[in-house]
């Protein structure tokens, strides 16, 4: 009954989405207030209906209702509650429902928080959101319905892939989708602005918080996925340039460019058509990612079950959404007037450089991901584009990005002083030199490129700090005065500083990965293994039962200079239902290095394969991502976003003054 209710709610949501996507647009064109006013209640109703559908499916999972095919295929009564819930989105149909749910959530959020938007803009933005909803609801109902039942329910389900039964992965999709789908709001704003033919500072001020929030969620989502790979796969890999990873990384890169170029639109009234284009591309890349993951055109370790009908349907959606918006762009963007003029060496110039580099990096990733498909489609040879390609092309593009991140904020708007900025950066240069020489000494004979990477990261981090000290005039005015200035700096300034430091922290972690040490040995009970100055002793291996698995639990005593520092418990878990084994690694995360232990197969003679790693600074990769996202959140809390009401009037005043 509840399942039918959910199914019905989803169909009803489609009807509401149709209304939401048609009525307000006509209303906006005719300036008909009543028609435009439909948008808000429609968005809220759609959110409630999709929410109901989501709740119904979750209910079926939690109660293990094996009359529902989707539950049979992905759940099992023995599964812990958390994974019963996360099982909802651990499969194609359910994850699409989550996708649409988050889309409805975003629409509802726009409906609620758009009180200060002009009526026409609000109506159009919500209508575009509604159109996307229509497309994806149709997709779910026609090709991927999670509410289908079977007449012969089995006694129990097939269970969820054990690899996915993990807290990190339970939360990875919701964050990722919040990011992907959140960018639909900037997309809707861009399309609405193209219909209106108007982009101004106020528009940028409205778009930026949405883009920033989505960017934060996407950052966290990607970091969670990477962290999950790190601790589950048993050998410490954390990024593979797999098509599905790239599908999430490309919108992140272009989204990063978007949140930066929107600043230029807001502050300097220029780069408008470029920013619109970025908003469209960011969400388009999210859609393309969805296509790649679910159509089966590419092979990937993560891909969902393949069905050509789904692929064709999503391709049609892409044609309508991306083709439509880019056509609109081609028609309307040339008319957008650009305002402010700037010199190449200026804050704007640095932001443009950042944009060029980030979008070029995204283009490189796009090409590398899809080239095998392109070549294959025209009958060329089957090739593989693996990590070495991305390392050699993507890596070098990131070097100037890190430099620009340090120097850019020190340049003035319109016309900057490069020499002055470099002089003010002396302390960053000194830090880079110090870190570089220190690392070179400590790791003599090791990888030199990694040392350069660390030095660059130090430069970027110190650059961010220098920018802050500049703003508070540290040591140039009395300390108390500086403290007062520090307190009154806008939150968005702190957000930027934090995000830039976060980037440097991640970069350092990535560079330091080259110093990681590995040892793989068969260790007898009671024997030891030395790594990175630590001694690991395999004390015992016990068999212990879990809720839906049996674990071989190894006790590894780790000592340093004879003192016990850690008792590790890496496990191998055997899942009866799927006849599958996973490994649970034991990781001791430290500020300067991680110790990482995975236990492998027994050799049958009292020995076990132990994989031990000493990975300097590795946790900085995810720590940096969290700092970046934190910077975004701090920036979001800036009061500027909340006082947008008067903004467009002021913008209008400028426009009048210019006439």
């Amino acid at each position, binding site marked *: 009954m509840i399942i039918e209710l959910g199914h019905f709610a989803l169909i009803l949501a489609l009807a509401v989405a149709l209304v939401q996507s048609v009525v307000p647009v006509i209303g906006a064109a005719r300036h008909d207030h009543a028609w435009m006013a439909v948008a808000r209640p429609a968005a809220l109703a759609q959110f409630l209906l999709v929410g109901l559908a989501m709740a119904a499916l979750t209910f079926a999972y939690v109660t293990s209702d094996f009359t529902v095919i989707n539950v049979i295929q992905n759940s099992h009564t023995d599964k812990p509650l958390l994974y019963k819930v996360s099982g909802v989105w651990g499969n194609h149909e359910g994850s699409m429902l989550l996708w649409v749910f988050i889309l409805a959530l975003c629409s509802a959020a726009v409906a609620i928080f758009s009180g200060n938007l002009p009526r026409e803009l609000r109506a159009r933005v919500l209508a575009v959101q509604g159109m996307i909803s229509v497309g994806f609801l149709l997709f779910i109902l026609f090709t991927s319905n999670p509410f289908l039942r079977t007449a012969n329910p089995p006694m129990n389900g097939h269970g969820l892939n054990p690899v996915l039964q993990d807290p990190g992965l339970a939360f990875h999709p919701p964050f990722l989708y919040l990011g992907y789908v959140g960018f639909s709001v900037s997309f809707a704003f861009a399309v609405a602005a193209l219909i209106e033919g108007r982009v101004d500072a106020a528009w940028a001020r409205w778009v930026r918080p949405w883009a920033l929030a989505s960017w934060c969620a996407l950052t966290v989502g990607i970091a969670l996925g990477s962290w999950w790979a790190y601790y589950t796969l048993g050998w410490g890999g954390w990024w593979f340039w797999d098509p599905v990873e790239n599908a999430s990384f490309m919108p992140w890169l272009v989204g990063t460019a978007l949140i930066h170029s929107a600043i230029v639109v807001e502050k300097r009234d220029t780069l408008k058509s470029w920013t619109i284009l970025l908003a469209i591309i960011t969400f388009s890349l999210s859609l393309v990612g969805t296509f790649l993951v679910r159509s089966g055109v590419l092979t990937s370790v993560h891909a969902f079950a393949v069905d050509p009908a789904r692929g064709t349907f999503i391709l049609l959606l892409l044609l309508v959404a991306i*083709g439509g918006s880019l056509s609109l762009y*081609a028609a309307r963007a040339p008319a957008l007037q650009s305002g402010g003029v700037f010199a190449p060496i200026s804050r704007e110039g640095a932001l443009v450089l950042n944009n060029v580099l980030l979008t070029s990096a995204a283009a490189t990733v796009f090409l590398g991901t899809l080239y095998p498909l392109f070549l294959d*489609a025209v009958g060329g040879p089957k090739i593989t584009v693996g990590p070495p390609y991305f390392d050699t092309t993507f890596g070098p593009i990131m070097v100037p990005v890190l430099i620009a991140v340090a120097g850019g904020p020190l340049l003035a708007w319109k016309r900057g002083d490069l020499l002055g900025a470099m002089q003010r950066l002396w302390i960053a240069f000194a830090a880079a030199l110090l870190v570089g020489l220190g690392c070179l000494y400590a790791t003599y004979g090791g990888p030199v490129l990694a040392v350069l990477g660390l030095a660059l990261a130090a430069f970027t981090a110190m650059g961010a700090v220098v920018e802050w000290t500049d703003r508070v005039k540290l040591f140039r005015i009395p300390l108390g005065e500086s403290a007062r200035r520090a307190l009154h700096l806008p939150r968005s300034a702190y957000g930027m500083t934090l995000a830039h430091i976060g980037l440097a922290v991640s970069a350092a972690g990535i560079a330091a990965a080259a110093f990681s040490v590995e040892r793989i040995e068969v260790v007898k009970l009671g024997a030891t293994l030395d790594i990175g100055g630590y001694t690991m002793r395999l004390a015992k291996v016990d068999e212990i039962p879990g809720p839906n698995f049996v674990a071989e639990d190894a006790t590894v005593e780790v000592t340093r200079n004879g003192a016990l520092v850690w008792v590790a418990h890496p496990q191998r878990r055997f899942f009866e239902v799927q006849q599958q084994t996973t490994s649970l690694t034991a990781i001791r995360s430290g500020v300067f290095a991680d110790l990482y232990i995975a236990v492998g197969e027994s050799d049958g003679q009292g020995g076990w394969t132990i994989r031990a790693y000493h990975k300097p600074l590795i946790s900085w990769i995810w720590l940096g991502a969290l700092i970046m996202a934190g910077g975004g959140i701090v920036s979001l809390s800036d009061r500027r976003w909340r006082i947008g009401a008067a903004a467009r009037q002021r913008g209008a005043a400028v426009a009048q003054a210019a006439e």
Partner: protein
Amino acid sequence: MRKTLYLLPVLLFLVIAGYFALGLQPGRDPHELPSALIDKPLPDFDLPALAGGPNISNASLKGQVAVINFFASWCVPCKIEHPVLMRLATKEKLPLIGIAYKDAVEDSQRELAKGGDPYVRIGVDRKGAAGFDFGVYGVPETYVVDKSGHIRKRFVGPLNADTVEKELLPLLRELNRS
């Protein structure tokens, strides 16, 4: 001039979408890999025969069109393929050469005794060394070799009635004619 520049994104997208459409063509399987040995001479191999008697080697196949099928008793898709092979052997009188890939001799024998033996001769590739030289990446795999000893075609995965009718038999007819 400037206006056409704004058309660039949508044109680029259409090109990419076209490639996506090509990628969605039915029948295209991104998992399927072409053999690196197409039109190359058969790799050297010399395997003991499952039934005893003289070894099976590339030299022993000289001068005839041959169909070589890699199978194993532990391989699930092979069981799906088995009836197709049986029909090929009985109805089409095809002299199939089997290679038992990474399979214990007793296991192969038991399996064939149970379901019938479609092969005229079977080589034992216990360690998978011959399979490696053929570039086998998932059993069952079927190779078609022409009279001059060159590999002309590889089928990955179980043969089915459709591929046999539309691809395998026409190819064999053509090779036998020349």
